[in-house]
């Protein structure tokens, strides 16, 4: 085809303090195609797209739009060229209605916002792309999938020709993903072009026309969909073959480590999220809790770890009843917590890796410290060892934690929580948002600790993760355990029924 590409990026280079995020990257996008940008976390996908969208400035390189060189200085500028981006963290104003979000910043609106006209045109636009929305709904009342639809509508409303989707499926249910894919197909059939950033192979293979693989800030290759398969993509992404389906080590469950009795916990809205729930985990055992997000998993984990005060019930660790909301007691008792929200709950973004690594040292005293003279050198040395044994990629031990990518941050949390050899590990969505390499690492680490004799409470949304890791599966629904099954895909249907609220005995 002699047709000019809609968009071309040539020799883009961008460096951050201590890391080169993009090195000499070239990429082109044809009219009406879905071009996937595939790579592990930290490979430079998002940085590259932020450059295209004007959020970052490239150190070197050029961008061409339909053959003409353009310089994108801001997101606003990018929108003028017809480049729009749906970011991982949605840019919507939660307290505004859908319509207000769509018209925000549009100059041609006139002084007064013509609410009625806007609302009806948004409704029509949504219907024509199979993405129905209610333009009068307040955005904070919407589900994640709906918020994403609004992001896409916003771009369509301004007439974007190039739409960048940054890991759009990371937060979606399988059904919502289907809706999104339908919309993407509709978009390209109408002449738009889509850049689809992802690290999920199956999705990339399903939706894209071409795939560009990034690794370590460099382009490994660009392939047409028909000429590649899963295996070759993995090799390009990770640089070697990865095996996610490894055997579970066989262990004999020992004595009971954690015993939860009649626990009732309220959530932030003061409603009962966990209702007189009981469970127990033995040493050398992984108990997987399956359930749709928001059925009390988070509250359960936080109550066990002492971050949330239960209304009633007991938490017993190694035959000792724990005081509610006493986190220090749990740390001293050997409880490790891997929370879902790595940036807010597990790390202090501005503190260095060393400081994050030894945040619990005050209670565990792994590296003996005098209260008057902190032995930084010993901490740094230990951190260096942990960095290499958990293969965290970072410029130095002094780098602030916020500069780490998602996968590396999770490795940092694992290193801190697990290097003390805990007897109980509470892992909440331990692989959410991680790429395959990092996922494999998390799985191996958790299984190794199980083999060592730790008890693990695994709260995960994805069933395959629960099947792969756990010894028993419990299904939670509205804060109650509906039943237990063995970790076998054979039981998927039964689990599905329980996730939707049927008690185990009730399923015909």
């Amino acid at each position: 085809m002699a047709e000019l590409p809609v968009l071309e990026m040539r020799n883009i280079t961008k460096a951050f303090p201590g890391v080169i995020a993009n090195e000499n990257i070239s990429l082109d996008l044809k009219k009406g195609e879905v071009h996937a940008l595939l790579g592990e976390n930290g490979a430079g996908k998002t940085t590259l797209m932020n450059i295209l969208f004007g959020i970052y400035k490239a150190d070197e390189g050029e961008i061409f739009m339909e053959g003409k060189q353009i310089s994108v200085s801001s997101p606003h500028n990018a929108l003028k060229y017809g480049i729009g981006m749906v970011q991982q963290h949605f840019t919507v104003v939660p307290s505004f209605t859908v319509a207000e979000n769509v018209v925000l910043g549009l100059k041609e609106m006139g002084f007064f916002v013509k609410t009625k006209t806007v609302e009806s045109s948004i409704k029509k636009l949504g219907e024509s792309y199979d993405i129905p929305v209610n333009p009068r709904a307040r955005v904070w009342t919407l589900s994640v999938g709906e918020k994403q639809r609004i992001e896409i509508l916003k771009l369509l409303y301004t007439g974007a020709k190039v739409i960048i989707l940054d890991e759009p499926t990371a937060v979606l249910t399988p059904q919502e993903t289907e809706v999104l894919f339908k919309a993407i197909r509709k978009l390209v059939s109408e002449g738009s072009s889509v850049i689809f950033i992802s690290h999920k192979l199956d999705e990339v293979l399903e939706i894209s026309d071409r795939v560009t693989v990034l690794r370590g800030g460099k382009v490994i290759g660009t392939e047409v969909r028909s000429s590649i398969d899963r295996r070759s993509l993995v090799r390009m992404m990770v640089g070697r073959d990865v095996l996610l389906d490894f055997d579970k080590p066989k262990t004999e469950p020992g004595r009971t480590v954690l015993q939860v009795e009649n626990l009732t916990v309220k959530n932030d809205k003061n409603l009962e999220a966990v209702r007189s729930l009981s469970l127990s985990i033995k040493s050398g055992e992984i108990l997987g809790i399956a359930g749709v997000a928001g059925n009390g998993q988070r509250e359960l984990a936080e109550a066990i770890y002492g971050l949330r005060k239960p209304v009633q019930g007991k938490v017993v660790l190694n035959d000792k009843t724990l005081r509610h909301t006493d986190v220090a007691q749990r740390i001293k008792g050997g409880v490790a917590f891997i929370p879902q929200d790595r940036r807010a709950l597990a790390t202090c973004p501005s503190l260095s890796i060393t400081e994050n690594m030894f945040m619990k040292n005050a209670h565990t005293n792994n590296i003996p410290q005098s209260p008057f003279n902190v032995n930084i050198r010993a901490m740094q040395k230990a951190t260096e060892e942990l960095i290499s044994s958990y293969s965290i990629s970072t410029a130095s031990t002094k780098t602030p934690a916020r500069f780490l990518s998602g996968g590396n941050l999770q490795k940092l949390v694992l290193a801190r929580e697990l290097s003390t050899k805990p007897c109980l590990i509470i892992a909440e969505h331990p692989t959410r948002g991680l790429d395959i390499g990092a996922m494999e690492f998390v799985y191996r680490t958790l299984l190794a600790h199980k083999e060592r004799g730790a008890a693990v409470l695994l709260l995960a949304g994805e069933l395959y993760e629960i099947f792969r890791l756990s010894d028993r599966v419990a299904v939670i629904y509205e804060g109650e355990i509906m039943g237990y099954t063995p970790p076998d895909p054979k039981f998927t249907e039964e689990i599905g029924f329980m996730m939707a609220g049927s008690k185990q005995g009730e399923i015909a």
Partner: protein
Amino acid sequence: MNNIESFILSTLSATVRAGTPLLFAVLGTIFTERSGVMNLGLEGFMLIGAIGGFVASYQTSSLLAAILVAMLAGAILGLVHAFFTVTLRVNQIVSGLAITMLGTGLSGLWGKDYIGVIARRFEPIKIPVLSEIPYVGQILFSHDLLVYISFIMVPLMWVFIYKTRPGLTLRAVGESPDTADAKGINVFAVRYFYTILGGSITAIGGAYLSLAYNSMWIENMTAGRGWIAIALVLFATWDPAKALIGAYLFGGITALGLRLQAVGAHISPDFLKMLPYLLTIAVLFFTSTDTLKRKVGAPASLGVPYSREERT
């Protein structure tokens, strides 16, 4: 009977007069804080407006010039506040407190030679027809021009904030600057603009004190009204309509205290003077509880400096 009637009427009329400086200060600050810039410097803005307006009136005998100079003085302080909080991203609370001290000090220095002098003041203008309405006419329509301007400003600001495109932009910048930025809105420019505009409106509140309410310059004449106004912004939940209610509620308490003293009620004058401040503490107490905070819907990014490349 007639005595009680006239007591109530004059108290209500004084309520409007005492509430007006607070109303200007609260309206101005609603603009500033809706854009996400917290302003604790109200006392400074009001004082600099009070002296600026008074000096201009004394020198030129022009009330228009007086108001313009007061607004300009407030705008300059607003520019300083914006420079520190938006460009340098200094902690907004610290900058606000510094502005209070700066405004207090500057106004004292500037006003040194104007203590005890007399300048032209805003005289009450009875609005024809309207002021003839029994009771209402005396309470609402027998005041000076600034009071009427504040009346008009409340609905105008309400419509501006909730119904227009620039109002939408303003709210978006205060709620979610990332979103606004992604939509091509210049977050920095918006914050500068409304910090300066808000500062100049707040300064009119101060000028009202020196040109209408007291009609002279006294050092530190705001006497804590700036702090009361800060509490009122919370009370009003950044809504101009509720600002009116809040300002007159406090105005009423002040007026009542003064009237009661005048008729020789047996209540300690110190206690009466204390009332507005007690109410301020009560407002802060009740608006700071967690549940309420979530309900009132403060601009979500209030107090958070914005920076493009530092997002996580």
